[in-house]
């Protein structure tokens, strides 16, 4: 068994989880394995419109030799136009019936796959045109629109628009939520340049959002920038701008399947909405009333719809609103919290139930009482942050006479690399039958009309689930690679759980591992212990030396026995869809693709570019990894030979992991790409720039 205690994965996603210090006996002879799977750091544009054909550039590394880009939905197609180590260009065709929102794609190379997200919008779009860095150079736009742009360092994208007095305009920046690295800000300015409104972080993952009520008819500016002027060529965004519908909250936050539900949405510009669609046309809701910013609708969710989290799409006629609303589907009786929910008079509910309420004012505490049988085990399961609301709920369990029994706060606090989950989850076994009370409040005792919670209370039996933490694994012939999975014990499960992979390719074998009944502890950025929401386990997968190169979906399984009862589950496959590793979720295709490939003998990793000035020495650091066990020195040479350029310190001694090559322009130099060659190994291309700076840098 290999249990993780580590600083965390997720800096690079879809990585092959190398053994390093964990593999111990399993692979004592193996050197750390390289990560050769494709990685996408940026997509531009971040999305396209329904029915549109768009040319899209993916930036990252190990993108050369792309075999294909497949979307999970068949009605989004991608044709690769060009590819090299750092970039792929593709033409993406979006079908007419693709729902708005994020959709998964998977890029495949011979060394692995990468799963990312692509946004499909409903508004006609345009791209930012530089220079648009200040008011004098603002780019004229007409609302509503969706703008695709990139924020480089100290870059401001300023757009001028006309608006009518009384309009409420929505400016919503999709960046982190759509996989971008950009930590963006938005500002609305008047014609004199006065900042009328500003937002940095609105959503929990740092994307900004503004609601601007136009004070007087005229021209205004919307400004996009990186927080603290951060930015890079990778920092793409989509700006939704206009008097478009926007929901602040929906109550209840969940619907019960098999019955008709009445739901209420409160927000802005909702008056023209006449139809709501659950997920990919799973159910349709009809608007029954609109009053004072609140939309009421009825929706029957068929029994065939699986419980879980979906997106609700809003339509005005045939035009879809650009932003969706998260919604839960369950088998629970979805109740609204009443106003009478104080400690002295809690709202009585019968289990199982989901109560939907709002922590609507400062220090608000909502109390619910319920009856249980002796020995009954009950789960208290809150959804709030996961639905996009900004509260941080805490739940506290009391006896009927207000004696404290248990409490729960964050299910998973941030810890440096793990995506957080601030929604509490508590399982409590009641020794005595009777009436009890559960209280929910914000941990900082804040309140807001938009602090919606969904508190599900239901009896549970001990159980567990299994999550695959990567949608791909690269297996090198003759080596052992690790696939990370997480086991979460539910309902009081306290026994070890066996996990394994199956449906492996010919020549690939896996070992079963046991997840002990304790949560994994990791160190956070301050070297403090953080408990994860489950037990992380690395599954060793060994590819024989003659295993055939190729791809194969594999399946993950977990099995455990408690109280004489054996349960077995497959895995839900998660991925970190944000490049910086803060947002996770299930992949659309729910597949782990294993890729068997050969381990290269030598890997050369130079900088992406080299700036060479006449008469000056440029220093180029090249990382070197050797897997050939070679004992002879290797000599690095440019390919092709560059006339007028001299390379010194080019010999790689055995055991060397980095070399600093000195490059000098001895004569006139022409800017062009080149590679480095060491024996049979060839590096990615290096862009040779002719400039005045002495040093190159990555």
């Amino acid at each position, binding site marked *: 068994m290999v249990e993780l205690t580590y600083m965390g994965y997720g800096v690079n996603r879809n990585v092959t989880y190398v053994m390093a210090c964990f593999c111990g006996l399993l692979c004592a002879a193996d050197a750390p394995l390289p990560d050769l799977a494709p990685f996408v750091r940026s997509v531009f544009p971040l999305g396209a419109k329904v029915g549109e054909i768009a040319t899209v550039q993916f930036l990252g590394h190990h993108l050369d030799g792309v075999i294909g880009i497949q979307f999970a939905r068949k009605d989004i197609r991608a044709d690769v136009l060009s590819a090299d180590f750092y970039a792929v260009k593709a033409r993406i065709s979006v079908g007419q019936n693709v729902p708005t929102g994020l959709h998964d794609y998977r890029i495949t190379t011979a060394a692995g796959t990468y799963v990312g997200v692509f946004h499909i919008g409903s508004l006609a779009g345009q791209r930012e045109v530089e220079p648009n*860095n*200040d*008011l004098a150079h603002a780019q004229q736009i007409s609302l509503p629109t969706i703008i695709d742009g990139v924020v480089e360092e100290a870059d*401001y994208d*300023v757009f001028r628009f006309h608006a009518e007095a009384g309009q409420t305009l929505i400016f919503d920046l999709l960046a982190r939520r759509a996989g971008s690295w950009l930590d963006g800000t938005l500002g609305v300015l008047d014609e004199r*340049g*006065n*900042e009328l409104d*500003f937002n*940095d*972080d*609105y959503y*929990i*993952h*740092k994307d900004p959002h503004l609601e601007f009520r136009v004070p007087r008819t005229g021209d205004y500016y919307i*400004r996009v*920038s990186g*927080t*603290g*002027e951060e930015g890079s060529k990778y920092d793409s965004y989509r700006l939704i701008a206009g008097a478009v519908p926007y929901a602040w909250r929906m109550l209840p936050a969940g619907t019960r399947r098999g019955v008709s539900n009445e739901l209420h949405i409160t927000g802005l510009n909702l008056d023209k909405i006449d139809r709501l669609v659950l997920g990919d046309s799973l159910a349709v809701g009809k608007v029954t009333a609109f009053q004072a910013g609140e939309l009421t609708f009825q929706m029957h969710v068929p029994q065939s719809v699986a419980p879980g989290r979906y997106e609700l799409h809003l339509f005005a006629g045939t035009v879809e609103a650009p932003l969706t609303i998260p919604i839960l589907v369950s088998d629970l009786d979805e109740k609204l919290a009443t106003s009478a929910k104080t*400690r002295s008079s809690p709202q009585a509910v019968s289990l199982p139930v989901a109560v939907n309420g709002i922590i609507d004012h*400062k*220090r608000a*505490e909502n109390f619910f009482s319920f009856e249980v049988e002796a020995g009954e085990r009950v789960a208290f399961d809150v959804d709030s942050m996961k639905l996009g609301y*900004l509260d*941080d709920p805490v739940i506290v369990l009391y006896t009927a006479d207000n004696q404290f029994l248990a*409490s729960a706060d*964050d299910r998973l*606090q*941030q810890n*440096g690399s793990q995506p*957080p989950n*601030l929604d509490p989850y508590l399982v409590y076994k009641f020794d005595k039958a009777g009436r009890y009370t559960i209280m929910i409040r*914000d*941990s*900082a*005792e*804040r309140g807001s009309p938009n602090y919606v919670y969904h508190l599900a209370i239901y009896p549970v039996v001990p159980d567990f689930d299994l999550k695959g933490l990567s949608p791909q694994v690269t297996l090198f012939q003759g080596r052992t690679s690790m696939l990370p999975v997480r086991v979460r014990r539910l309902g009081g499960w306290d026994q070890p759980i066996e996990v394994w992979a199956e449906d492996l390719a010919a020549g690939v074998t896996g070992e079963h591992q046991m997840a002990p009944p304790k949560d994994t502890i990791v160190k*956070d*950025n301050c070297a403090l212990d953080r408990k994860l929401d489950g037990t992380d386990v690395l599954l060793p997968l060994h590819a024989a030396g003659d295993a055939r190169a190729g791809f194969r979906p594999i399946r993950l399984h977990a099995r455990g026995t408690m109280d004489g009862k054996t349960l077995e589950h497959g895995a839900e496959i998660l991925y970190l869809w944000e490049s910086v590793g*803060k947002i996770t979720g299930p992949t659309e295709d729910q597949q782990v693709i294993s890729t068997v490939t050969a381990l290269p003998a030598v890997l050369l990793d130079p900088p992406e570019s080299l700036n060479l000035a006449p008469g000056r020495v440029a220093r180029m650091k090249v990382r070197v990894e050797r897997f050939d066990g070679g004992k002879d020195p290797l000599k690095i040479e440019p390919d092709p030979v560059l006339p007028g350029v001299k390379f010194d310190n080019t010999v790689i001694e055995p055991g060397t992991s980095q070399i600093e090559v000195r490059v000098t322009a001895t004569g006139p130099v022409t800017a062009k790409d080149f590679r480095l060659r060491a024996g049979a190994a060839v590096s990615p291309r290096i862009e040779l720039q002719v400039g005045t700076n002495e040093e190159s840098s990555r």
Partner: protein
Amino acid sequence: MIRVSTLMFAAALAAFAGEKPKLSFVKDIVPIFTKAGCANSNCHGSIRGQAGFKLSLFGYEPDLDYDAITKQQDGRRINKAQPEKSLILLKPTFSIPHGGGERFKVGSLEYEAILDWIRDGATYDSAGSPRLKTLTITPEEVTLIGIGTKRQLSATGTYTDGSTEDLTRKVQYTANDESVVEVSPLGEIKTRRAGETAIMVRTLGKAVAARIAVVEKPPMANYPDVPRNNFIDELVFAKLKRLNIVPSGLSSDQEFLRRVYLDAIGMLPTLEETKQFLDSKDPEKRAKLIDELIDRPEFAEVWATRFADLFRTGLLDQGYKGGRLMYNWLQKSVMEDKPYNQFATELLTASGQLKFNATANFYYVTEFSEPENLATNVSQVFLGVRLECARCHNHPWEKWTQDDFWGFAAFFGRMGIKDTYENDESQVLLKVKGEVIHPKTKQAVLPKYLDGPTETEQPDEDIREKLAAWITSPQNPWFPRAIMNRMVKHYLGRGLVEPVDDFRVTNPPTNQALLDALAKDFVENGYHLKRTARLILNSRVYQLSSEPNETNRGDQINYSRYSVKRLMAEQLADSITEVTGVPEKYPGYMLGTRAMAIPQGAPSYFLATFGRMKAREVICERDSQPDMAQAMHLISGETLVRQTTAEGGNLGKWMADAALSNEDIVRRIFLAALVREPDRREMEVALLPLQAHGEAARREAFEDVLWTIFNSKEFLFNH
């Protein structure tokens, strides 16, 4: 000085000589050490004592003093067998070496009193013996006419048993400004020059002050009838009349225009705005302009910057995001004229994630905001009371004890920080439980209001709400006065109390009536900052010329003329860019963003040099002192060079305008920077290079004019 004191003290005790009453340690012995200076903060009253002997500061804690004298060092400070050999007598009489020198003589009444007390057994007062409850001074406020005039102060103590005692000869007197009056150890004051000061009077842990004004001559017979615009004028001019000071005349329209723009919105008027105002014949034009300026967003930026100073917005751990969020909240709050009691309440009861909850940054000055730091900051910001000293010992100039300090800190006992969302994001929250431990008693402390009772936190309660209610209560004397004082300081150049956050009985306001009236008006009219700003700006006091006259030349504290102020760093930077039309770039902000519109965190050498706040955990005021770095920066600093020489901008525009003569351009520069036209001599000097070198030197000549003006006091100061 000691000798005089001893004689008078002996006289006081002589009345009792025949009866030989048993001396009280608290009433008779402790005051000797206070009056002799032994219990001062620079001597044995310091926090660590002196040479191993520690007395409580000014005799605040007699029980500790008793232990120090009779028990510590194995009791060797007193010698009951041979009382005259007691160290407590040998040292202050300098019979043996003493770092503090001679404090009283052998045989003096102080000496005899201590000797008698030791002979009587060196006992402590019996339980329940009366303690000093209040100390009063007479007169509390007086105006003395003539230099060399004398007046005796008298001090009276009231004890816990209701008895009173004349303490005139037992208390310690200190003049806050000894150049105005001198005060003898027995409380006789003698005037030295015209002016005002307070005499601080202390004994047994109590302190009071007498406010003394000195005028050279009797009241003027022909004191002019100065027009009044509102009650500010009434109260300021009434006092000036008492002091024989005639206020300066009314400022000119040009002076007023430049001044009010800079003070109200932190920037200069544009050429168009200047022309419009100066051309107007409307008798109400000043009041109308004030209304317009107060409604501009830049007005809110000035006060957001002022508050950002106090809250260290954007400094330390708040970072760029927290700082900007907080600044925007401050700006919006002022813009919408949010009642100040609501403003304070929102801050005091703040919690939540720092990047989403602006006010939570109030409590996140450092990652480890401790209750004691919060107590210090809250009392200083909202009450103008410096509690900091009482963290470690009882306050030297005030009544605040360590118990008061830690009781106040206990209101913040449940404050905590937790990490949420991502690596650099934290949340201010209320812990389920939390307490503050008194460093001396090692016991948990109950929350206690300053000068008030203790408080207990009920279930489902945030005790900070009670604290906020107490702080913002109309009955709280400090809350409105603290902010009124800050506003007076901003507009009139000097607070009624200085330093502005140091309200205490021994540091009385220069015009108590005015402070009270402003506070009353503020509270009764809904705590609106804009109302007070409007009142002050419309007062004749604000609109007085800064030119002194014969009667007010020496007055620095009574608002008899407009107090010339160096421009704030942000005002200066924005004024320069406004004149040149060359936008500045501050890191983290778009080109052209004004300095006043950014919170503290954006790094700028220029702003830092000219006194913008630096990162500090405990609040302090801006440094407005000039220094060499500022001078050098104005002479040849990067900012000024860029601003004067950059292509384009206003100069480029004006020079390209064929309709403008060289004289017109000089005129525009003067109007833009100084809100006045150049006089004949200035015009001649400005055009000299053009006459000498012709059109080739045109650009350089105008740049020189700009440089010269930017380096002039007339530009650098608001006047």
